């Protein structure tokens, strides 16, 4: 009886943290989906996330206003993305390389800023977890099981999940989404109809950058409420992988993000509970899963045909 209870509690804990941990992956990977559907591979997501995490955190640290923190993170994400746009779209640099460059820049810059502007690890009061209370006594968050899973997250987390249907709608049901898809699949055709390929790509990559900035902020001012150097620990790269995993579809990305974060949560609990599995193996688990999923060959066919290919009218 007692044992059952703890098992149930652990399961609940895993699901709860799984949902929580999906937050940054969702922002970053949905953002990357926009970028890649328009034909631009942005490998610098992790660097953008770090910059977003820092500026979000620093703004809240100074102003005590988490909304301003989000705004700052989004803005710095847009600026970072625009750098990539100039290099990758306007100057048509090799996208894999320029993305890595952006990552290195974000990593170094955020560390430098941290050292000069903060110096030590501090905490802030960011977005708190909602409890959905009605009157004084009844809170949805206290409902057994359901409360833990659905009604005890911060607005930032709910936002991440709301982004999935929104992104699907934009990509599949709006004129802008049609342009994004066309430009990523056959830019010549889009161009011949008067669609400005590079403008659509700039916009898509910038949206991706804003969302990557928010992804970083979701760590520093919502989930953890602290800032550490290199606190994303490669999450941005996982987010890029999740886009492949999810076949460039928001729904697929959601599935991947949840799977990944749940395995990650499981892994944390394996460590917490001191189970008889080497913790290194546990840490490897989610990454192993990602690699396996990416190896499935049929996904390749769904890849936007013009991904990583800069566009120039057929003159040269």
């Amino acid at each position: 009886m007692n044992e059952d209870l703890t098992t149930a509690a652990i399961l609940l804990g895993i699901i709860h943290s799984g949902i929580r941990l999906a937050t940054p992956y969702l922002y970053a990977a949905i953002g990357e989906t926009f970028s890649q559907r328009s034909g631009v591979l942005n490998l610098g997501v992790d660097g953008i996330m770090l910059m977003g995490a820092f500026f979000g955190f620093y703004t809240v640290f100074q102003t005590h206003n988490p909304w301003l923190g989000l705004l700052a993170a989004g803005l710095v994400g847009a600026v970072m993305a625009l750098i990539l746009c100039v290099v990758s779209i306007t100057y048509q640099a090799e996208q894999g390389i320029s993305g890595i460059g952006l990552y290195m820049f974000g990593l170094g810059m955020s560390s430098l800023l941290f050292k000069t502007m903060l110096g030590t690890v501090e905490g802030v009061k960011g977005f708190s977890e909602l409890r959905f209370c009605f009157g004084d006594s009844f809170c949805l968050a206290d409902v057994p099981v359901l409360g833990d899973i659905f009604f005890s997250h911060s607005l930032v987390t709910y936002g991440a999940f709301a982004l999935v249907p929104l992104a699907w709608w934009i990509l599949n049901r709006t004129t802008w989404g049609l342009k994004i898809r066309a430009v990523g699949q056959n830019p010549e055709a889009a161009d011949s109809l008067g669609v400005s390929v590079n403008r659509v790509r700039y916009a898509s990559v910038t949206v991706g950058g804003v969302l990557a900035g928010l992804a970083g902020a979701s760590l520093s001012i919502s989930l953890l409420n602290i800032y550490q150097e290199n606190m994303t620990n490669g999450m941005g790269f996982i987010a890029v992988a999740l886009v492949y995993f999810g076949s460039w579809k928001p729904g697929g990305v959601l599935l991947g993000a949840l799977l990944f974060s749940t395995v990650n949560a499981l892994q944390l609990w394996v460590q917490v509970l001191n189970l008889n599995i080497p913790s290194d193996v546990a840490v490897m688990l989610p990454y192993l899963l990602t690699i396996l999923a990416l190896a499935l060959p049929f996904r390749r066919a769904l890849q936007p045909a013009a991904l990583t290919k800069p566009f120039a009218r057929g003159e040269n």
Partner: protein
Amino acid sequence: MPFAIHYLLGIGDMANSSNLLPSGLPRIESLEMRGIVKRFPGVLASDHVNFDVKAGEIHALLGENGAGKSTLMKILYGLYQPDEGEVFLNGERIVIHSPTDSIKYGIGMIHQHFMLVDNMTVAENVALGLPSSREPRLDLDVVSARIRKLAEKYGLQVNPNSVISKLAVGERQRVEIVKALYRGAALLVLDEPTAVLTPQEVDDLFVIFRQMAADGHALIFISHKLGEILALTDRVTVLRDGRAMGTRPTAGATKQDLASMMVGRDVLLERHRPPAERGPVRLKLDNVNAINEDGVPILKHVSFDVHSGEIVGVAGVSGNGQRPLARGIAGLHEVTNGRIYLENDDITDLSPAQMFKIGLSYIPEERMHDGVVKDFSVAENLILQDYVRRPFSNGIFLAFKYIAEHAKKLITAFRVKTPSRDTPAKNLSGGNIQKLILARELARQPRILIAAQPTRGVDIGATEYIHNQLLKQRAEGLATLLISEDLDEVKALSDRIVVLFGGEVMGIVNSDEVTIEELGLMMAGEKRAELA
């Protein structure tokens, strides 16, 4: 745009003011290109070209493959920038930086190579770049309904919900035409819109074009089919090697006149097909069936054979099973039922690679996509399937010297117009890409040749050459399956003709005993014939 569609659907009549088209777009009274020069590495594609077109006129642009027709039109549409020269619209100088500009000036274009996003539906392709009636939401239902009306009105079979990648080339061409009509343009450039259409479809299309001209549109029409030029256009300008050789009224001209103006020598327009010396059966299809992705049968109980030394033509309206037939034999489309034999060997389930090994050559209809690697050089494209074999390689290293000689030989034989053998295939003109693929496939000395639309977009000189090659290989014992929308071509070259309708064989007839009209009826599914 909304005006344009109203007009095309015959809903509104806005043509009260004289400088407006019935669609409400302003007329382009005259458009003039003066002294246009365009240089590409190693090629002078436009050499001080003067060209003009007026409202109410259909102006033909004629020239051999690589003469510079598409280049001139791409300059007009803003896809290329000229090195020299100017463009005047209604007497005023304009500069066209991009298609956005040309669309703004009322210029539309149907491109020689399809400009379709292949993983999207017809309706999505039509809607792309146009404002929606429900911004920011798409209004695909409205677009689809309009497409259906347009298609019905003009007898163009298109289903707005089809995904492009599943359509045959003829169907894709119809989509391109619908796309252009839907958008409307005061000046419409038509770069080889008829290359893959059936004669009936071409006739229907010409009715539309003539109506548009009568309403005050200006049209520029490119085709290698001289009969079409004579039937449709008012004036014709001939280009040769990037230079305009002159402009003349079409009325009074003959095919021979145009041909010699264009080639600079007399061209044989008739084919002489000596009687067949049929050998044993080389290719045999026995009750072959196939289905598409949705499980719908697209080939039904297809049986026929092709003898060595024989050309068997396949006639049919595009989309009636020609594509799965060709792909089925080549091992690219699964045959659900029935067998295919090469002589006595069952080759039904062989992979494409094995098919090549046993001597099957396949010239696919969608060649830009399936036939060349666009970024590879001409020489590399000429050895695509054979690069692992002697004499092109010793198993480890490529024999560059031999490859270069091979390329040189074929480029000369097939008159592929290219600055050099190292030029990437994508820089060749449309017709020269066709010649490149044909050269490769015929040079392999196959035992069976499946040729889908082998002279699509190829100029008359090269068509003559290709036809002669096919007939020569036939005399040497090759079994050829010739799939073509061009009934004259099918009739001229084939010994027997298989007519397909709805994936079924409507009949197999001796080409010398059947009339074009009878073929037409069979292709429409209205008549069956006894097997020949």
